[in-house]
């Protein structure tokens, strides 16, 4: 240890410029380590908040979803950007579970790029989900829309279209819920209250994972 320290000192006097940059690197690495630990703490605290706030509603929503699946309903999931990947993940989790659970019918409304770009090009981005729901959503199906802001115009239109058709509507939003919180067309709204878009998405993932697990538990209990 002492010999290393002496060696480092000698090298430092020979190459002071290089060593000051290494000190910088050590400081930046330290900052990044600390930030990593802070973010881990944040997401765990946020999940605890969501659980506190939505424990009962999650169970109720899963019961409604299970009832819909039990009578032939299908799940249609949608979102933009990172939330589009979450909606595709959610649909695939229901349709093709990796750990042997019963597959349930589900579609991601961002999966077909031909449909998405056709609607965007011919009509506009605001109708990209609503038109798909109008085309083949049915009474008893489930519509799940994910948005961090809660303000995406194409989600708002989709919830209205789904509600009109008698679908079960589930909204997963962030911050204060945005405009999704003002809609009458969302049956079950889950709002992840955080100022960080990243932490919001991470807790939203837990929300839809919980809905999937609870839906299966309800379906199993009903058998």
């Amino acid at each position, binding site marked *: 240890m002492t010999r290393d320290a002496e060696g480092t000192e000698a090298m430092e006097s020979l190459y002071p410029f290089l060593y000051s940059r290494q000190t910088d*690197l050590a400081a930046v*690495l330290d900052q990044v*380590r600390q930030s990593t630990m802070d*973010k881990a703490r944040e997401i765990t605290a946020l999940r605890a908040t969501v*659980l506190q706030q939505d*424990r009962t509603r999650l*169970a109720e929503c899963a019961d409604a979803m299970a009832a819909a699946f039990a009578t032939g309903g299908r799940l249609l999931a949608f979102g933009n950007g990172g939330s589009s*990947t979450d909606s595709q993940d959610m649909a695939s989790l229901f349709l093709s579970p990796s750990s042997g659970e019963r597959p349930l019918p589900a579609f991601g409304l961002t999966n077909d790029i031909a449909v998405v770009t056709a609607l965007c090009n011919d009509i506009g981005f605001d109708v990209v989900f609503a038109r798909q729901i109008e085309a083949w959503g049915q009474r008893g199906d489930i519509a799940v829309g994910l948005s961090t802001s809660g303000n995406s115009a194409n989600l708002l239109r989709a919830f209205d279209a789904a509600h009109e058709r008698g679908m079960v509507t589930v909204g997963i939003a962030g911050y204060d819920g945005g405009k999704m919180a003002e809609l009458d067309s969302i049956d079950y709204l889950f709002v992840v209250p955080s100022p960080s878009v990243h932490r919001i998405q991470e807790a939203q993932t837990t929300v839809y*994972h919980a809905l999937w697990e609870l839906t299966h538990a309800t379906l199993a209990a009903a058998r």
Partner: protein
Amino acid sequence: MASPASGSELVDAVFGRRAEPVQDLADQADTVARTCHAMALRFHQGGKLIVFGNGGASTDAQHVAVEFVHPVIVGKRALAAVSLTADVATLTGVANRLGLSEVFVHQLRFLSVPADIALGISADGECENVLSGLRCARERGLLTVALTGGDGGRIARDDGVDHVLVAHSDDPRVVKEVHVTTYHILWELVHVFFEHPGVLDEEVAS
């Protein structure tokens, strides 16, 4: 249908399962920091990020790509990133001709350059095509990074992977959630190194 009381208990159990694996990620903060630094060096050298995975992880690959290309935080620079799961024509074409094991290797062979970063995501660390993609990337001189879960699997034990972050849980949903936090952190903290350009010089890198 289940009674609300038992449903609520199950909700508690589901949420409770997340805390420990997240703490475990915090315990890997040193690996996270070194991975961010190595990735920042590659971006600094003009490399791009190439992401791949199967099933749910294919959506994570696309999420990572959009995260880097279109930053959600105003003022952060856009970085080149591509998911190997978005081109369904190539994916199914290669799978049909050569098998699913070749879908990522094929794209890496023709789309990557040595300065790039390969990020493979596998919930159990056992995906054959992710492992062979990472090995191919390593041979071509790319930086290789893996996000795995469970006990880390074959991918975590492979010599061809430079940086491995393991989400220690047997529940693939929990693993996925830890992965989302991990790649959000990787994205955000790569940018910290750009704010200190001195630490991206080659002398410091070696």
